[in-house]
């Protein structure tokens, strides 16, 4: 496993996709959540932007930031981690490097597991940093707003972000089946769009790609309260089974 991990760390750390996704995962949550709420409450907010920002003008500052962070983190975790895993797996076909991974003493299942492990570790680190930055920015802008309740809500957003990141790992399966990253990129867009539609019609609690986001407050406090542990366990179980299927697909793929 160490050999496979070393190769994946070396390639992933040098990819443009990884660098862009790191910026998306680390910078967007604090910038969007604290920044948008602060902007909404600025005295000179006017015009069409003011209407968009209106929901963030009312209520306690910290709680509003935490609610918006739930929305932002859920989306960037799915998209950012999704594109990263799509690249790390799909590039083997796009760059025609997959052929060299056959008939090695290091099995392809181990290579696939290493890919998912590297992505998982990177995503966990990025999301942890993002939430720490969000809390620090909030404390810097308005120290009194970082109450125990707000910190608890941010911790919940962090857990939801990790769950959404885990749910992005199965895009590896799409990358294997479509023999490249374009198919997986299409799947990420499709799942994101479908999730929005299903959430709007109120079918989110039992859809793995929606439940963590709702739980994190992306749909408001009432919808968050409607998500029980069973919905989250289902989402985690789906991520685990689909990740296992991704490893299996990578290990069994041929080049016919």
């Amino acid at each position, binding site marked *: 496993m160490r*050999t496979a991990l*070393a*190769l994946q760390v*070396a390639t992933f750390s040098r990819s443009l996709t990884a660098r862009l996704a790191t910026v998306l995962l680390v910078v967007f949550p604090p910038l969007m959540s604290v920044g948008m709420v602060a902007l909404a409450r600025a005295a000179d907010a006017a015009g069409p932007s003011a209407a968009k920002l209106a929901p963030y003008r009312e209520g306690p500052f910290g709680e509003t930031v935490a609610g918006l962070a739930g929305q932002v983190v859920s989306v960037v975790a799915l998209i950012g981690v999704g594109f990263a895993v799509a690249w790390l797996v799909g590039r083997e076909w796009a760059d*025609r490097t997959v*052929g060299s991974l056959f*008939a090695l003493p*290091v099995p392809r299942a181990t290579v696939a597991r290493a890919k998912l492990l590297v992505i998982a570790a990177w995503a966990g680190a990025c999301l942890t940093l993002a939430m720490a930055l969000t809390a620090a920015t909030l404390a810097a802008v308005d120290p009194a707003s970082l109450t125990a309740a707000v910190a608890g809500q941010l911790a919940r957003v962090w857990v939801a972000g990790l769950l959404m990141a885990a749910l992005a790992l199965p895009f590896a399966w799409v990358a294997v089946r479509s023999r490249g990253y374009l198919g997986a990129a299409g799947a990420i867009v499709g799942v994101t769009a479908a999730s929005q539609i299903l959430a709007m019609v109120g079918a989110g609690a039992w859809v793995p790609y929606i439940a963590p986001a709702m739980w994190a407050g992306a749909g408001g406090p009432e919808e968050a309260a409607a998500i029980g542990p069973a919905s989250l366990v289902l989402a985690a179980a789906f991520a685990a089974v689909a990740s296992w299927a991704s490893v299996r697909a990578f290990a069994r793929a*041929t080049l016919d």
Partner: protein
Amino acid sequence: MTALEIRDAVRAYGDLRALDGLTLTVEPGEIHAIIGLNGAGKTTAMKAVVGQTRLDAGEVRLFDTPAASAGPATLARLGFVIDQPFGYPELSVRENIVHAARLHGLPMNAAAAAASSWIARLELGPWAARRARGLSLGNRQRLGLACVAAHAPDLLILDEPTNALDPAGVLLLRDVIVAAAGRGAGVLVSSHHLDEVSRIAHRITVVHAGRVVGTLEPGQADLEHRFFEMVRAWDEDHREDAHSRQGALA
């Protein structure tokens, strides 16, 4: 012990039988060249050896072990370049060789030493720190060779290894192949450069229509002529099969 045995291999893609009962062996210390027209089945046979394609029938054995159940110890004795040489574009030449050697079972220190040795041997020194994406096609092919030879495999499989090499690269490749066979490794090589093949091979097998249709004596003159005669004779004797094959290829 036979280094490689392909027995009665069959692989069909729809109506096209890419392999149609192909059987061949490679012995330790032997350079076995396979020659054939495009679509003859050479690459498909090599892909079947390493699992890139599955056989409909027949068997592949590596060092007397069924390839399908070969473990890490057996696979560590194999090195191959089929279709695309090893090389991640974002890694340097040295890094690629080190990672390839480690994937083939060498520990870190041995892999680093092997990388230095093969960079010198294949005259890749000026590009050692350069990323593979910036290399010429010929140097990428040299890199690919270093990546599969650095762990000193006992069986080397090379599909058209000379097609992007300049004359200097061809000489280096020839030295690598001859040296590998000299230390006891079996080498299976396919090539369109029949003169080159004739110069170094111990055995030349003609593959056509997915099967072995004959052998040619290495070192003889006019290899191309004798090759085409053999292929034409087979097509004459199997006219119906040849027609249906051309239809499937079209």
